[in-house]
Every structure is written in C-alpha cells, then in structure tokens.
C-alpha cells in the first residue's frame, strides 16, 4: 500500500469518449480525460455540468453509453462498482452511501468481507482500521452507529472504506460542501498525505479556491462536456470561471449601502426540537429591518433550515416572534404557511424542487402555489384558472423565464428557470419580509447575477430580507449584516465590510477565539456534536 509509484508514462486513469444520457438529458458528451499517478486532479464545473455522472461511471455506479476506461495503461471494463474496486478505485460520493443503522465497522466491512462468516472479517477490520486511522489521522469510533456521528466523521468513514479496500485512486465528490473551512483544511492535509503515498486523487468541486489550493491539474466541465484540462499552476480563478460558464463573469454584486428602516421581523429566544427529540434551535434571537439584507452563514445542518421553516410556518417552535410589531403564532392553529403569507412573509425555500414547486404542476399552477386561497385566484370553492394563467404569463415575462410557456410542467424547466418562477411568485407578492434560502443553488452564473439583482432591488424598495446560504461568497456579496449560526446558536454578528472568510469560518465551527490557536480536532468535536444535536 505504501509503494511509491515511479513516475511512468501510463496515466493512472484515462477516459476516452465517455457519453451518458439519462433519458432525454445528456449528462456527459464525448468526454476524455487523463489523470497521472500520484497527482491530485480537480474537476470543476457548475451544478449539473455532469461531474458526478462522469465519476460515477468511472466507479461503475452508472454504465456509460459509449467510451472506454483505461486504468494504469490497461483498458478495463467497469460494469459495476465491484470491478472498479478491483481496479483500485475508491469513491466518496457527494451524498454518502452509508447504512445509518449499522456501526462504523459494519459499514467498512460491508462488501469487503473475508468469508461467509462475519466475525473474523469484523475482527480484521477493527485491527486494520486502527492502523489506517493512525497512518492518516482518520480517527473514528468503530463501534459508533453511523446515525450518531456527524457528517465530517461520516466522510472519514467513507474515506476509510475506500482505503480499506486498498484503493490507489480516490475520487472525492464535493467533499467540502458539508465542512467548515478548517475541517476542509484538515481534509486537504489528509489528501496531501495520500498523494505523498503515491495515491491518485480526483477531487470534484465547484469552488475555485479549493482547486487553486490543492490540485496539480484541473479539468473544467460545462453542460456535459469537457471544456479544458490545464495545469493548475498555469491558470487563474478568473480564467477557470470563464471556462466554466463560457463567458466572463462578475464575481461581485453592485449595490449601494443599505438604508435600514423600522424593525420588521423580531425574533427572540427561538427554540426548536425536532420529532427525533433533537434540539435544533437554541435560543435564537435576531432582528431584520426594512431595507436591509441579513445574511445567515453556517455549515449546512446547524439550524438555518429550521429557522426558515419556523418563520415560514411549517415547523413548531417556542419563543417570541413579531412581524411588524404583531406577535406571530408559533405553535397554534395559525402557525402555518398560509397565515405567514397573510402576515406579509414571502419565502423562497432552500430546495425549490422539493418545496418551492410541485414539479408535476404546470407553471401556471405553480404560480398560485402557497397562494391558492388568495381571493384573486378563486371563484367560490373553485379556482380561477384564467386568472392564474394571466398572472403566470405576466410574471414569466417580467422575470424572463424561458421558455415562456405557462403550460410546461415545472420539471421541464432548467434549474435556473425553476428558481426564477419561485422568485417571481414570491417577490411579486410585494411582501414585507422575504425569507430566502440558497437562492442560487444549482443555478447558472448568468441566472445568479439576475437573481442577486432582484434581491438587492427588493431591498432597495425598503423590504426586509433574511438570506440563508451555505456559500460564504454569496453571503458576503449580498448581506448588509452577517449572522453566523452554529449548532442552533447564533454565534454573533459581523459587518461584511470588516470581516473575512477566515473569521466567519471559525464562527461556523463554533469558535470565537483567535483563529490561530484552534485545532482541527476541536472543530471536529464541535461539529460532530452539532451534526447530531443534543437530545433533550
């Protein structure tokens, strides 16, 4: 396992002409790529560019429609993951593939058992796990249930799974999406170690910073195609961004300083316990004023979603919330999305496909979604279809939704256009407060600019905006004030003009001290704890 590979001409991985369609969607189009052994190769591209698909093909999860795979200079067939594992390939998926009701050890052994009996396999795995953990700083408790450990820890289990199977080529699909900057740094150190051991690493990300920091070479994907492969040292973030999007992009939003007015939303001591008994929000207080954007930063899963859900009316909570000075019901009969909308709160949810839209409804039906009881959409107990249709055509026009076909089902619009439909519906309600979660997740840069402009325009009309995003860049670009959430707590507020990613990252990990003195272990302990929450 620790043999150092002598630099040879044969690439560790070579893909030739890979194509893959999912029904009508062509996810990969004639893609070729070479990865040299002992290097870290980055793959960057927008959401939906086809990165995960390509790597899943390499790992035998999907089968390509066309193309060849060469490993260490030999052409191989990879019909399933078994073959990939045999070829020395390991993969950590974007969405972990762990059995939550199993222990860490069982998860590691699963599929790599030595014999038909379980006991000897488990014993060997326990021994080897210890060795691996020591070697790569990958400490895990082998007997913990996966459902009881945090995401950072789960990621280690995934890496260990690959190493246990003696992978020489390790694919990581957006590994940092769930990590704090410090945790990400730790991960990168591990990757450096692995590279030094001679392993080949393919790292998928859409964060330019990470590419620049760690990779040796980088490939850029756009709309299912490979647009370029370059040496990292010979490129720049701006050049990569342009390759990703296909045109020059603005990385900053133009906006004037905010003119905050009266307090619109006042939240005091908000507490949420979910149905598993986990305490999700712990005494959260905040205020949003008219004409300002309050950005909430945090690693996914630290209570931001619950905050939006409570304010949006579909999670129960205790505490005091007032809207325009009037108290809001948090538990009773009128604690639902309908009353919130009547109170002047509009909500662009974090997940437009699962929440904001009914994917099988046509655009014109979705335009009334959440507002189905509005007087203008109804005629007695019936719905006024003509009014809905008219409204849709208007809004789609104003938000430049393409194609302008109100009868098209939501699922048939692209991600960016789906988001525009939701935005159009919520913004055009002229709300006093707009809750907006992950406004540009899975959206093209072109659409991102448009959406950011709309948010700022709404602010400038004197509306209050509460923005939640896991993209620090987005938070920094849009917010007038930034609050950081960690483990259900508000860690404090910062001024975007004076703070930086490093400081926010510390807060996101639950640290308030000097960034220099904190160890990664501490951060991990904190986050593992936060990931599962505390039982009450």
């Amino acid at each position, binding site marked *: 396992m620790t043999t150092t590979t002598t630099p040879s001409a044969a690439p560790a991985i070579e893909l030739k002409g890979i194509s893959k369609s999912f*029904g009508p969607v062509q996810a990969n189009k004639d893609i070729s790529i070479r990865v040299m052994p002992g290097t870290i190769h980055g793959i960057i591209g927008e959401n939906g560019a086809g990165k995960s698909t390509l790597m899943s093909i390499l790992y035998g999860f999907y089968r390509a429609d066309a193309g060849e795979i060469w490993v260490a200079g030999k052409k191989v067939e990879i019909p399933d993951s078994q073959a990939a594992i045999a070829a020395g390939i390991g993969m950590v998926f974007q969405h972990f593939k762990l059995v939550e009701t199993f222990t860490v050890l069982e998860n590691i052994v699963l599929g790599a058992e030595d014999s038909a009996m379980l006991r000897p396999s488990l014993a060997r795995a326990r021994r080897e796990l210890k060795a691996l953990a020591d070697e790569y700083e990958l400490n895990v408790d082998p007997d913990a249930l996966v459902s009881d450990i945090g995401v950072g820890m789960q990621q280690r289990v995934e890496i260990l799974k690959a190493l246990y199977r003696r992978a020489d080529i390790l694919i990581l699909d957006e590994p940092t999406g769930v990590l704090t900057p410090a945790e990400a740094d730790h991960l990168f150190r591990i990757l450096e170690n692995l590279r030094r051991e001679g392993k080949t690493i393919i790292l998928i990300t859409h964060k330019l910073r990470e590419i620049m920091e760690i990779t040796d070479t980088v490939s850029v994907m756009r709309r299912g195609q490979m647009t370029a492969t370059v040496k990292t040292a010979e490129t720049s973030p701006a050049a990569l961004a342009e390759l990703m999007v296909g045109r020059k992009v603005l990385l900053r939003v133009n906006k004037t300083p905010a003119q905050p007015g009266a307090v619109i939303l006042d939240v005091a001591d908000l507490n949420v316990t979910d149905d598993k008994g986990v305490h999700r929000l712990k005494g959260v207080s905040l205020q949003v004023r008219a004409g300002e954007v309050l950005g909430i930063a945090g690693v996914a899963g630290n209570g931001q979603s619950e905050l939006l859900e409570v304010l949006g009316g579909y999670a129960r909570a205790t505490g005091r919330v007032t809207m325009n000075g009037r108290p809001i019901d948090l538990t009773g009969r009128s604690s639902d999305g309908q009353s919130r909308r009547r109170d002047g709160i509009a909500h662009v949810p974090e997940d437009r496909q699962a929440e904001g839209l009914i994917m099988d409804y046509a655009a014109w039906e979705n335009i009334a979604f*959440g507002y189905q009881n509005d007087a203008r959409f109804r005629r007695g107990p019936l719905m006024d279809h003509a009014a809905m249709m008219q409204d849709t055509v208007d809004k789609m026009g104003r938000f430049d939704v393409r194609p302008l076909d109100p009868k098209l089902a939501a699922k048939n619009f692209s991600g960016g256009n789906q988001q525009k439909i939701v935005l159009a519906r919520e913004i055009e309600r002229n709300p006093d407060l707009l809750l907006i979660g992950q406004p540009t997740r899975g959206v093209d840069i072109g659409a991102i600019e448009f959406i950011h402009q709309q948010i700022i325009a709404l602010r400038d009309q004197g509306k209050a905006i509460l923005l939640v995003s896991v993209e620090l860049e987005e938070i920094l670009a849009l917010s007038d004030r930034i609050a950081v959430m960690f483990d259900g707590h508000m860690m404090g507020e910062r001024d975007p003009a004076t703070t930086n990613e490093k400081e926010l990252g510390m807060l996101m990990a639950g640290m308030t001290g000097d960034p220099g003195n904190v160890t990664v272990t501490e951060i991990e302990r904190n986050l593992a704890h936060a990931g599962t929450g505390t039982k009450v």
Partner: protein
Amino acid sequence: MDVMPKWADVVLIPVISLVLAAALSAIVILAIGESPWEALKIMVQGALGSTYGWGYTLYYATNFVFTGLAVAIAFHARMFNIGGEGQAALGGLGVALVCLYIPWPHWSLALLGATAGAALFGAAWAIIPAVLQAKRGSHIVITTIMFNFIAAAFLNYLLVGALKPAGSMEPATGKFPDATFLPSFQDMFSTADNPLFRGAPANVTFFVAIAACVVIWALIWRTRLGYELRAFGHSETAAKYAGISPTKIIVISMAISGALAGMMAINNVMGEAERLVLNAVEGAGFIGIAVALMGRSHPFGVFLAAILFGFLYQGGAELALWTSIPRELIVVIQALVILFTGALDNMVRMPLERIFLARRRKAARATTLTAAE
C-alpha cells in the same frame, strides 16, 4: 422533459396492459381446455347482448365506479386505500340502519338518507386509519388491510346477533321496508309491451355514480381542495411549505375515499338485496384498485374501467353458468390487470419511452438537417 406524449400515457399504456392481460387470460382458458373465442362470445352475449345483460353489467359497474373513485381520489393524495372492502361493508351497515330504523315516506328521501348513512359510515371507517397515519405514522396500507378484517368480524358479529331477525337462519338483516326500494332500470325504462332490463338489478344508483364521477372530477381539478390534495400527493414537503396541512389532506382525502367506498352500499344493499347480507361487498373494494389503476385515477377513466369490469363480472357469471370455466377466471383477469397496469407499468412504459425517444431524436436530427440545407 416528458418523453412521451400525453395520449400515450393515458390511452396507449393502459390499452397495451389490457391486451397483455387479455392474452394471458386467453392462454389460461386454452390451458384448461376451453376456447377463448367461445368464452368471449358467451361473455359478450351474456353481458351486452340484452338489456338484461346490460342491467347486470351496469349494476356491477355502479359498484366499481364507487370503489374505483374511492381508490382514485386517495391515489391523488398518494394514499393507497386498500380498505375499500371494509369501508363498503360499513357503508352497508349505515344503509341498513337508515333503511330499517327510519320510517321513510318515499324512496327518494330514503336514497338521500341512505347516501348520507353510507358515506358517513364508510368515511368513519377510513378516518381512523387516516388519523393513525397522519398523527402516528402507521402505514395506511397495513392499517386499512387490518381494518378490512376488523370490519368483517364486526359485521359478522352484528349480523348473527343484534341485526338478525329472530328465527332467521341467515346472517342478514330483515328485508327493508317497501318505501325504501329504489326504482330499478326495469321500473324506469320498461313499458307494458316492451319489458326492458327484466329482473336485472341495475337501478337509479347508476345515475348517482355518474354524478359522483362529475363531482369528483370537479373536486380534483377545479377546487382549491383538489389543488391542495394533488399538490400533497406530488410532494408532501412542498405541500407543507405552501401551508397545506398534511393531517388535513390525509384525513379529508381518506374520508372522501371511504365515503365513496361506503356509497357503493346504496347500490348493492339498498338497490339490489334490499337487506344487508354478510359479505355483501364481495371483493368490489379490491376491484376498485384495478379500476383506478386502469382508469389512471381519472373519474372518466374510472367510469370506463368500471364498465369494463362490470362486463367482466357479468360475462364471467355467464361463463360459469354455461361452461365449465369457473367464475374465478374473473379473479385471474382482475389480478392480471392489476399486475400489468399497476406493478408492471414500467415493463410496458420503458420500451415505449425508448421508442418515443428514438423517434424524437430522429425528428430532431431531421430538422437540424433541413435547417442546415
């Protein structure tokens, strides 16, 4: 992008599934040494060849419209109500109580009363599983199955006990009073010199069933309730976001579903038997599943599928009467229809989608070619 045009989804797939089911049924008939062609002739003749046959076909169809609508409306809210059998049984109890213990002056009033009784009892029997699903997360499929058995035991208890007239040997209530007898097709359409539908049980309930189709159609596609119900069926998380209460939708959709299943009783209990017998539902609750699947959960589709099953039922009874093919053949056909239109849907759909996709690709290529010229 939808791969297939809508007509293919709505018409082509059910038709292909039906053809597959029919072909396999024919093989079964052949295998037991009978002629499928002869069997079909007997079925068509017996079920559609006379007003008498139609009278039975439409009578059965009426049952299936109700149970089919019941399953369909629940499907729209993504509830699988497999408890139509029990709900219809309880509906029968409601009808029996209304007819036996309230002195009705006229059948029309009795019909209203019985409809209310049937709907109420059927709904009540569906609401319990619904509430358990909404509040306690008990799987509705399992609970409704259990409720079928509980209903059977409960009715059994009543029909051999409190509701059985003294001295009777059958587990059944006494005959309903004459004033509750619903006009049959014979009463409605026969003239002195041209007797139609003689002795067939089809009755005025058929028109109630048609009305139910129209009302349910409007409910699903025209009302706010229907909008919310379908939204919930497509995505529960989205429904919550929009302020649609899952509890409300689960309970209301199941209540409507149960009410519809219960309303079947006005046809078979009040319209036909004119008393409540044990096991009056005779599997119609389950046939509702096949009917709803076949009819793509659309009231019009349900209506057509119900007629089809009415035909199968009456035709099957005729088969049993005139050939040695047992009536259980109908159960086989029913099973095959459920299998192909429900569980094996993808088997039919996937190749079709491939064909349509290939055609579309070809068309797209052709247009780019012509554009290039």
